[in-house]
């Protein structure tokens, strides 16, 4: 039993220290998974619990953060002068991610979610001179604290409602009979607050504004690692605490999933700004990830980890390119393939992966989700809806591909001086990773079976 590792909290950490620290933690996780023996034991009274599932997820999150640092490290400077603080805040978030990945009690879940959220509020508002950034931060903060309140209330109901009088999610023994009113209320409240965190409809309204307003480098982090971590918490919470009651809340989740898929995909179609489009697409992808919650079987759990990796990689890659663009509209991508063929190629791979074309990680992830949902056997209409929405998503993802390859533009579309060879190679590595995961998803899934 251990926390993903001790986290660096010092304030003046330059980029290299951040990367080095990440590598160390990553290595520690890998060693622990392989050997099954913890390296560092902190007694947390069983409030955190690590198994191969949790640890693999933490590794995926850390790995993606590593890539994120490598790709975006230099862009932090453009946001403001406090580079080291941004790194520190992101490490705080990572600490929260590890907690929500391993939590064993509702209190730890709350703590983890808050450790993730508070630094995020700051990061959203970090571009102090930008009015939109301030507005987004305020909006996010208000809505976020509201959902936190709801979550606390839910936790209180759960505590009062279960016969064992415990916060431990494994010991609640809710049984499978009709649930008592208190538990029912607690469950719905928790579902609402978690839906807010993962931006599931109808609690998604903050997402486009916040993603749009926040500095693009941080949107990238928010939309990728933070998002999948919240999902992971969502699924773990409902699996451990409410797994036995699945038949009673499944329809509710199905409705939320359907709404998320429809709203996310349909709205994304009409966006002109790529950044906003990606915000809606993240809602749409959340809809697909909700299928894991809906199905809640072993396939779903494996699929979720895979989805986390596939989605984070593609999103981080896309945002890394977006940061360098002069113009965030779809037309801003016109003619990119002529000016930066390699970047255009990698962006294409990211988009294909998000669409779910075979041989990319995104396909394997979607495949697992569909598999899990069909295996579940209930609400088959949801699966059909999901694939129809995936077809719609092809429409807006391919618009960018069309802009890059089939339309011309005489002006330069990127800030050329920003693009170093190492940046290009890193993007290429990310793209290759996506394809490798698409062909051999077992590279990730094998870790789950240690």
């Amino acid at each position, binding site marked *: 039993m251990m926390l993903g590792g001790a986290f660096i909290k010092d304030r003046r950490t330059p980029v290299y220290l951040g990367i080095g620290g990440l590598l160390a933690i990553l290595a520690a996780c890998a060693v622990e998974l392989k050997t099954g023996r913890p390296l560092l034991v902190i007694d947390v009274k069983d409030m955190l619990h690590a198994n191969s599932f949790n640890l693999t997820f933490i590794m995926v999150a850390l790995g993606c953060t590593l890539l994120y640092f490598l790709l975006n490290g230099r862009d932090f400077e453009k946001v403001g002068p406090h580079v080291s603080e941004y790194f520190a805040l992101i490490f705080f978030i990572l600490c929260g991610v590890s907690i929500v990945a391993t939590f064993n009690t509702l209190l730890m879940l709350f703590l983890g979610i808050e450790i993730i959220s508070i630094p995020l509020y700051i990061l959203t508002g970090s571009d102090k001179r930008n009015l939109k950034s301030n507005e987004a931060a305020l909006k996010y903060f208000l809505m976020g604290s509201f959902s936190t309140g709801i979550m606390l209330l839910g936790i209180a109901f759960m505590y009062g409602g279960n016969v064992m009088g415990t916060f431990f999610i494994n010991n609640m023994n809710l049984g499978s009979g009709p649930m008592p009113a208190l538990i029912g209320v607690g469950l719905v409240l928790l579902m609402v607050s978690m839906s807010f965190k993962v931006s599931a409809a109808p609690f998604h309204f903050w997402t486009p504004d916040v993603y749009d307003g926040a500095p693009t480098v941080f949107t990238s982090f928010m939309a990728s690692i933070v998002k999948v971590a919240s999902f992971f918490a969502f699924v773990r919470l409902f699996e451990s605490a409410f797994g036995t009651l699945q038949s009673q809340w499944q329809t509710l989740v199905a409705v939320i999933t359907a709404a998320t898929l429809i709203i996310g995909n349909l709205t994304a179609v009409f966006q002109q700004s790529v950044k906003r489009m990606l915000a809606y697409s993240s809602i749409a992808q959340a809809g697909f990830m909700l299928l894991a919650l809906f199905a809640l079987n072993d396939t779903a759990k494996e699929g979720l980890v895979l989805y986390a990796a596939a989605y984070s990689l593609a999103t981080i890659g896309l945002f890394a390119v977006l940061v360098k663009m002069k113009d965030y509209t779809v037309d801003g991508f016109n003619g990119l393939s002529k000016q930066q063929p390699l970047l255009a190629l990698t962006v294409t791979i990211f988009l294909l992966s998000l669409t779910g074309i*075979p*041989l990319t990680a995104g396909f394997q992830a979607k495949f697992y989700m*569909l598999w899990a949902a069909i*295996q579940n056997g209930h609400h088959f209409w949801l699966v059909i809806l999901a694939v129809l929405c995936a077809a719609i998503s092809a429409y807006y993802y391919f618009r960018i591909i069309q802009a890059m390859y089939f339309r011309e533009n005489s002006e330069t579309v990127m800030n050329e001086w920003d693009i170093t060879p190492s940046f290009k190679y890193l993007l290429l590595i990310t793209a290759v990773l996506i394809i490798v995961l698409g062909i051999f998803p077992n590279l990730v899934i094998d870790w789950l079976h240690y």
Partner: protein
Amino acid sequence: MQNLGIRFPDLLIWFPLIAGLACFIMRDEKKSRAWALFSSFITLGISVASWLNAGNPELNGLTFSYEWLKYSGVNFAVSLDGMGRLLTGLTAIAFPVIFISTYRNSYKNASVFFGLMLLAQSGLMGVFCATDALLFYFFWELALIPVYFLCSRWGGEKRIQATFKFFIYTFTGSLLMLVGIIYVYLHTVPTAFSEHSFSMRAFHAALLSPTEQNWLFWLFFIAFAIKMPVFPFHTWQPDTYEQAPAATTMVLSGIMVKMGLFAVIRWLLPVFPLAVVHFDKAVIILSVIGMIYASLLAMKQDDLKRLVAYSSIAHIGLMSAAIFTLKEVGMQGVMFQMFSHGINIIGMWIIIELLERQTGIRKISELGGVAHKAPVLTIMLVVIALANIALPLTNAFVGEFMMFSSLFSYNVWIATIAGISIILAAVYTLNMVQKVFYGETVPVTALIRDIAWHEKFILAVLVLIIFVLGVFPKPVIDLTLESVKAALTRFS
């Protein structure tokens, strides 16, 4: 014979793939073009070798598969049966033909163009060889992606919209099929090796109730119907054919539409026999409506490409109707016609391409009197056009005759209505020949020169195939006999 580790299905898939990837690296237009042609000949050689070794199951990989994704039981399982050999053969013949006939066309970024063409070939080969459902799905999509880029990048004026429509259509269909595949997978019988399996044999033995079969049937059939295309899923086709670059149109109409027919025979009939019997009439009626509708539209077309596109819908409609008669003779006809139609329509496209390259015009009303200037081209065209309307002694006659006889024994009325499309085909094809090639010479055609030697050669090869198969169809029919029987075993 000892297994030397060389299996034809593997070679047919991997060779074009590697050749295509190699093509991307080349910078020089001439080099990449020559390389593409060269590699397509090698693929043809492999294919011919696989025909010659038809009796050797080891080399054709009847029993071979690699484990790919161990948790979901996906195998890289490929094999070549008679039908597979026929269609991989068609693919292998088509590509050199396409490359030679468009040898003079020059492309921007030629290396990328030829690379994508070869990738498409690899995907098509994979579709025809795969015996694992998920692998089949992979190749099904992989054949689509290069074609999407080819059409959008090198196509005509309205290429982006047209291709996008095509892409969204087929992608939606494929996703529905994916849902179907996973559903069937979860109902396969557990074996000693894995709980469920995607292998074709497991799919054939899947435990599905009649109701489940009924709606699964449509999930699969819509995907295939879009690809073929069968009415009412055909609207992408004329636009895409019109806008795509000539070489890609040939791939699309010559080979890719066969994917749909092939998939129906390979994956639909044996897996959902009850549903097939239940819906056979519905599909046949849709197909026949499509035939008449497309033929009527073809008569109205002034654009040569659109005319051929609609005539293709009519031909495919007949094939899809014949499949669902579930009779051996009809099925044989379909097999034969899949091959013949591929050859004939590629021939048609080559001629249209040659005309358009010289005159820049595809409008029937603006052309005329080509025969005086280009006699060889005209002779070739007349032969191919006659094959298109299935005159005796041409290859298409054999196939259409078998399909119609099967339709007649299925239902006389349906067959009679479908028969009207033959007359309509004669009307629009001969009308086109008359207006474009005979009649008065108009200024644009006055400058036309007859075709070059390599174009003559390639058209002559096609014409030769048309006649040889028209007179002597037995080799092809023998080749696919087993596959036909296998496809129909669950209906006898």
